[in-house]
């Protein structure tokens, strides 16, 4: 058994709105909003590190869950934009939490990494007890603020999110998950020489078909109707993509939590930042199924189902 016990997040204070970004990429603020649903995103300070902001989200998560770092049996950290490939930010976050021997592993998968972390944590919790999952990204350093880099520069922002998965208790029980990889399409979304590249059309084609397929698989396997899902929490890639997934699920967009308008696409951090904000807006106990889904480099994608605990 594995339960979702709490979430946390941290966003840099610097806001970069479309008015500031548009002239740098030879676009208009209105166009950026139309093609992405993004009004502003956050940029980390020069002194911030991927591990450093992940640590702040981790601490926020532990505080909200009423847990301590000493209770953790494992840490999983998702990031596609880590400052250093090896070792990645997981060990830095573990050290920042004061842990000297707790296993801390990196998941170097942009966008889908935190979903993979949640799915792995649900499987590992029985042995590890409490698993902290962190998604942390400074994507602003992986895009080019120029007309040539427009397709990615308008989307990405910085931030970190975290979740605590507990073997014994929490507000929702992780009931099922699925993960997939299509390596033959990996060249549509990748990092090279420190910069992020994306074949936007291909990515949207893949994501708009693969994510609903994964969600429907979980719902069918657990005999749950989409109409009965309390909330859909998706990687905040692009508001138009989330709308596509909602339409494919024949479910009103209002059931899909979104905050991409304020934070942009924070890659693997976005799912957990969204979960933290969604949870913060809940006044009572979970009353229905909760569905997570993400899509990212690899290509990796999947979905996770949680039920009231």
């Amino acid at each position, binding site marked *: 058994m594995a339960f979702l016990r709490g979430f946390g997040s941290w966003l840099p204070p610097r806001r970069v709105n479309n008015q500031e970004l548009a002239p740098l990429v030879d676009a208009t603020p209105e166009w950026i909003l139309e*093609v992405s649903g993004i009004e502003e995103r956050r940029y980390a300070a020069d002194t911030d590190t991927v591990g450093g902001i992940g640590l702040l989200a981790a601490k926020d998560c532990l505080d909200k869950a009423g847990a301590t770092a000493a209770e953790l049996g494992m840490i999983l950290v998702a990031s596609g934009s880590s400052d250093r490939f090896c070792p990645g930010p997981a060990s830095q976050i573990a050290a920042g939490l004061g842990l000297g021997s707790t296993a801390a592993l990196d998941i170097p998968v942009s966008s889908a990494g935190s979903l993979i972390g949640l799915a792995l944590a649900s499987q590992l919790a029985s042995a590890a007890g409490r698993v902290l999952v962190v998604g942390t990204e400074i994507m602003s350093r992986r895009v080019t603020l120029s007309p040539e880099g427009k397709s990615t520069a308008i989307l990405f922002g910085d931030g970190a999110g975290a979740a605590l998965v507990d073997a014994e208790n929490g507000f929702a029980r992780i009931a099922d998950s699925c993960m997939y990889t*299509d390596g*033959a*399409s990996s060249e549509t979304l990748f990092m090279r020489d420190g910069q992020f590249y994306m*074949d*936007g*059309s*291909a990515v*949207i*084609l*893949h994501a*708009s*078909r*693969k994510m609903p397929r994964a969600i429907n698989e979980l719902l069918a396997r657990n005999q749950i109707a989409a109409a009965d899902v309390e909330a859909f929490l998706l990687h905040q890639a692009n508001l*138009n*993509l989330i709308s*596509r997934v909602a339409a494919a699920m024949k479910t009103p967009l209002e059931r899909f939590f979104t905050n991409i308008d304020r934070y942009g696409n924070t890659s693997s951090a976005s799912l957990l930042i969204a979960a933290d904000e969604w949870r913060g807006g809940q006044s009572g106990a979970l009353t229905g199924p909760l569905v997570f889904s993400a899509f990212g480099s690899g290509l990796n994608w999947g979905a996770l189902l949680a039920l009231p605990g």
Partner: protein
Amino acid sequence: MEPRARILKVLQQTTGKEISPGADDSLFASGLLDSFALTDFVSGLEEEFGVTIPDSDLSARKFDSISKVDAYLAQKV
């Protein structure tokens, strides 16, 4: 109905416009399709021609003109 006419019908349904681009005109460069409309276009082609377009074929280049779509579908049907 000829395949190219059926492709045009799907394109018109996707865009909601009575358009008739040349067979080799780029549907992206002309602005008729964007990333999201392409998803609908591919779904419409699957329905119209009774084929399943596998994820491995999800490249905008394959669907960038009526002639390219025609050539692609000729292999599938």
